[in-house]
């Protein structure tokens, strides 16, 4: 099949989903009201609660939700064939993805801009809040592990990428200095620092890491894992304007330009899918159900989006009518990004064997190869395009990773400072998060790590949908449109996590593993078991809350028809 048909199908699903399904839910069930005050207006504090233009929120929401997730998932999932992956991306977004993102924003907006911790306390139970926050900590640890693995495998596999990574970081730090200290014009700053990043991409071609450092260092996973965590360390302990924000700022241009020209390249080349539409029900990481449904997380449905929608976007919406375009509309845009990744993986290799050899080295190489090919169609030399793709991949992953390490530093201080005040120290908190993440990166097999991250991510989505369903029931509104996706995601992700943890722990207790693999499997196996237990306790609390709300609604006097 031609890749253009896939993009057309995506476009049709997006139009139907947005214009018909989402519009119906928004107008008939949620009854969005342009005259109702939003928390951004009602509690305007000039910082977090601030009415913001819909167009700015499009960009903010897209940048916050579209990391490495929608790209890597389809690249791995195509091992089952491109057809199941395509169906899940389209159907998942249509029936679940937008419902989740939009309703997370709505529930926060209708509850005074409360975040998920507060909502679970209010709607379910006080215990639910503590369990949810512990769940989120381990979920974030898996994000660090999975994304860190992507960074390391890309740096090892594509020798031009470390130089580009270094130069982009230098450009970012300089951007911070120019904007905030030297007060230099933002456009000039952008031109200079994005230019420095481009020079780094060019130098990556001329001076790959194996020439600069030698083969053994360039191939060392330890070296690049340490580099990634040193990057995150600076992002965590330095003032946010000095490192984290300006680096993200410069990286945003590199990623944005790469995506725009990459999509143009797809339209120019109009490639055919060369990989099989369907391979088999079961592959080494597991069967289609439940494993494929968690492998493609962000391109179909992702729990991360609920955190962004509730704690970020909902506090900035100036009008209730903006929740659908921002919450649902941007989810459909992310679906298109996942389809772009699927097209890359499905069309650039001559055979399944070639693809298998490439993906065994990590998903970054597949993505970089594809970006290189499509940028070549718009005139960029193939080698440069490949390095461009690799640095896009690194920054798509590491921008989320550094945010999560910073957050885990704060969470470590909150959770452990009662045990010892030393955990309040920013360096100790960062070190705890970095060591835990690094152990996962070094010892975990990346495909299992990705499945566990996807499982935790989807489970977070189902917990968000549980909160939404509880709220809908409490308001006496129809809840099936959120509750059925919640049940599907809950059952699927629990099955995926149990299946994967069983596989991991069977090898641990079978005595076949030694060294790094033993540590990695044990850590991953028990983390996923913890997530399952936490989710089951939350589900039981949620079930009690549903019954409570139903009983309360039944006890209320019904309006007379007379």
């Amino acid at each position: 099949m031609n890749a253009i048909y896939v993009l057309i199908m995506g476009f049709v699903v997006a139009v139907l989903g947005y214009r018909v399904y989402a519009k119906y839910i928004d107008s008939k069930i949620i009854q969005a009201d342009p005259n109702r005050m939003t928390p951004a207006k009602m509690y305007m504090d000039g910082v977090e609660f601030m009415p913001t233009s819909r167009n700015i929120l499009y960009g903010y929401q897209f940048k916050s939700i579209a990391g490495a997730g929608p790209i890597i998932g389809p690249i791995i999932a195509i091992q089952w064939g491109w057809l199941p992956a395509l169906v899940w991306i389209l159907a998942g977004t249509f029936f679940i993805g937008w419902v989740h993102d939009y309703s997370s924003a709505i529930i926060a907006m209708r509850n005074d801009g409360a975040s998920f911790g507060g909502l679970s306390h209010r709607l379910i139970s006080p215990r639910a809040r503590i369990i949810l926050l512990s769940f989120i900590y381990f979920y974030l640890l898996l994000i660090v592990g999975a994304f860190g693995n992507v960074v390391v495998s890309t740096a090892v596999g594509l020798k031009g990428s470390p130089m580009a990574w270094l130069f982009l970081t230098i450009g970012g730090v300089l951007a911070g200095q120019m904007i905030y200290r030297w007060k230099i014009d933002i456009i000039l700053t952008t031109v200079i620092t994005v230019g420095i990043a481009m020079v780094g991409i060019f130098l990556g071609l001329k001076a790959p890491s194996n020439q600069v450092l030698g083969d053994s260092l360039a191939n060392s996973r330890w070296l690049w894992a340490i580099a990634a965590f040193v990057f995150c360390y600076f992002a965590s302990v330095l003032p946010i304007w000095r490192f984290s924000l300006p680096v993200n700022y410069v990286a945003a241009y590199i990623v944005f330009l790469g995506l725009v020209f990459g999509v143009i390249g797809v339209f120019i080349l109009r490639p055919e899918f060369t990989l099989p539409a369907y391979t088999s029900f079961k592959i080494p990481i597991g069967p289609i159900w439940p494993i494929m449904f968690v492998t493609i997380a962000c391109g179909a449905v992702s729990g991360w989006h609920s955190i962004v929608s509730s704690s970020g976007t909902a506090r900035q919406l100036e009008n209730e009518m903006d929740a659908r375009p921002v919450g649902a509309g941007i989810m459909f845009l992310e679906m298109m990004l996942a389809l772009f990744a699927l097209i890359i993986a499905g069309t650039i290799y001559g055979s399944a064997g070639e693809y298998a050899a490439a993906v065994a080295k990590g998903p970054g190489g597949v993505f970089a190869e594809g970006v290189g090919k499509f940028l070549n169609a718009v005139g960029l030399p193939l080698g440069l395009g490949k390095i461009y793709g690799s640095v896009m991949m690194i920054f798509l992953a590491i921008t989320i990773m550094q945010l999560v390490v910073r957050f885990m530093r704060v969470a470590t201080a909150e959770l452990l400072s009662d045990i010892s005040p030393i955990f309040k120290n920013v360096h100790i908190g960062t070190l705890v998060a970095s060591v835990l993440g690094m152990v996962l990166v070094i010892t975990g097999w990346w495909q299992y790590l990705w499945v566990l991250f996807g499982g935790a991510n989807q489970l977070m989505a189902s917990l968000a949908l549980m909160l939404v369903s509880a709220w809908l029931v409490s308001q006496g509104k129809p809840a099936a449109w959120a509750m059925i996706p919640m049940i599907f995601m809950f059952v699927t992700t629990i099955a995926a996590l149990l299946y994967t943890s069983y596989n991991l722990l069977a090898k641990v207790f079978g005595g076949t593993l030694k060294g790094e693999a033993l540590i990695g499997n044990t850590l991953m196996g028990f983390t996923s078991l913890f997530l399952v237990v936490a989710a089951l306790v939350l589900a039981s609390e949620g079930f009690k809350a549903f019954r409570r709300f139903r009983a309360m609604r039944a006890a209320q006097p019904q309006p007379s028809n007379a």
Partner: protein
Amino acid sequence: MSEKQKKKGGFFQSVKEFVYGVAAHDSARFALKTRASMEHLFILITMGDMLGVPILPPYYSLRLLPYVVPQISTWKRRMLREKDLTDGLA
């Protein structure tokens, strides 16, 4: 301005705002958060006088008060709002 020109300006304005949202909106939010945390301190040192407990000598409080008063209503909202860990992620 004709309807066509308005539409054109509207489209470019939308694109500009979208790019701002992708690249710089987060920076602006974090800059505001940093300023807000400084304002917390600023207001707290004058809060004593408002409660009748002088912390700073009254002369300095009086000098600071005109800068503080316009911020009080939004500051109250920030201080009294329930917060949790997930606020740090978005």
